[in-house]
């Protein structure tokens, strides 16, 4: 199923219930940090203020790059496979935001093409290295590091977890690399479809 546009269907700004949190397969944070306030640019050249845009959605944030052949595409592919099978109303409550850690090679068009191969609703963000590092720093993620491999080629060290922000604007769960489709299928409805007060 391809969702061509995200409806601004903002559910109540509530977190999942305590019972739902206990049952999650992802790594629940002891402290649910507030959503960080940073602004980067999306693939259409528009500013994207993360704290504002994440509010009211289950927002999954990931830092990676398109030339990463192992972790990044597997993470996004697993997630997109599960998202495509969710009921429509549940799917509308979820946003996926991918911030490139390789702004030099990941031009807006390259990033957009790559993300479209997973899901055209995935949001791609970029900025200067300093801006991206500042965004990562707000999440406790070390600055990105580039390692030259010769002949103009390089790899980028980056965080490998996807961070889940619940609709109440809290970073509640980390999904490290190794999260399988069954894990997403189990957790996403709990995180996105919950009602009631947050824990």
């Amino acid at each position, binding site marked *: 199923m391809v969702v061509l546009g995200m409806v601004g269907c903002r559910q109540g700004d509530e977190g999942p219930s305590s019972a739902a949190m206990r049952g999650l397969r992802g*790594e629940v944070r002891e402290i649910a940090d507030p959503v960080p306030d940073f602004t980067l640019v999306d693939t259409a050249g528009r500013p994207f203020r993360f704290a504002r845009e994440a509010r009211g959605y289950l927002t999954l944030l990931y830092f990676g790059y*398109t*030339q990463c*052949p*192992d*972790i990044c*595409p*597997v993470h*996004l*592919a*697993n997630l*997109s*496979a599960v998202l495509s099978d969710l009921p429509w109303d549940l799917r509308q409550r979820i946003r996926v935001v991918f911030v490139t850690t390789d702004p030099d090679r990941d031009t807006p068009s*390259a990033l957009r*093409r*790559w993300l479209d*191969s997973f899901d055209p609703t995935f949001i791609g963000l970029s900025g200067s290295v300093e801006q991206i590092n500042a965004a990562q720093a707000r999440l*406790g*993620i*070390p600055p*990105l*590091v580039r*390692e030259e491999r010769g002949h103009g080629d390089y*790899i980028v*060290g*980056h*965080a*490998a*977890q996807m961070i889940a922000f619940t609709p109440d604007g809290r970073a509640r769960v*980390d999904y*490290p*690399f*190794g999260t*399988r*489709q069954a894990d997403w299928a189990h957790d996403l409805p709990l995180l996105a479809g919950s009602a009631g007060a947050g824990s």
Partner: protein
Amino acid sequence: MLIIFASIAGCGAAPETGQLAPAGGAVGALVISKGCIAEPIGTKLAVLYFTVVNRGKEDEALVAVAVEGTDRSDLHRTVSRGGLAWMEATTEIAIPAGGSLAFAPGGNHVMVQDSAKHLRRGALVRVRLVFRRSGSHRFPMPVVAYRDLDQCVADASPRIVRRSE
């Protein structure tokens, strides 16, 4: 003579000392399973995953991999350094007697360089695995979409430490 270097061309640069493996992916004490190649997306790199079980009484090591029709393949592992995930090349990976070696996302993987862009989902590609003791053997492995890797690979990828200390 065994081929013992870790990066070899897939186009016959070294003499073929092995043979096509019998059906089922078993060669002597080694059992190869869960082999698949991810169709590249927007990059000339492809990744190959599989599992090797060593049912023998002798330790073994995988020293090289070659994918038919591609220029070069390297053994890699994804590691955590300073809270970040990195890919590191390695020359060989041990498979202890009675043990197994999993190439799975986020852990060990084979990086297929350069000509990987011709690999398309649905294709069946011959992959040559070179072992220190058991020699060189070829196995067919399918090219699949990244979303189908979840059904193909072992659940062996390590959890990456998410925060730097």
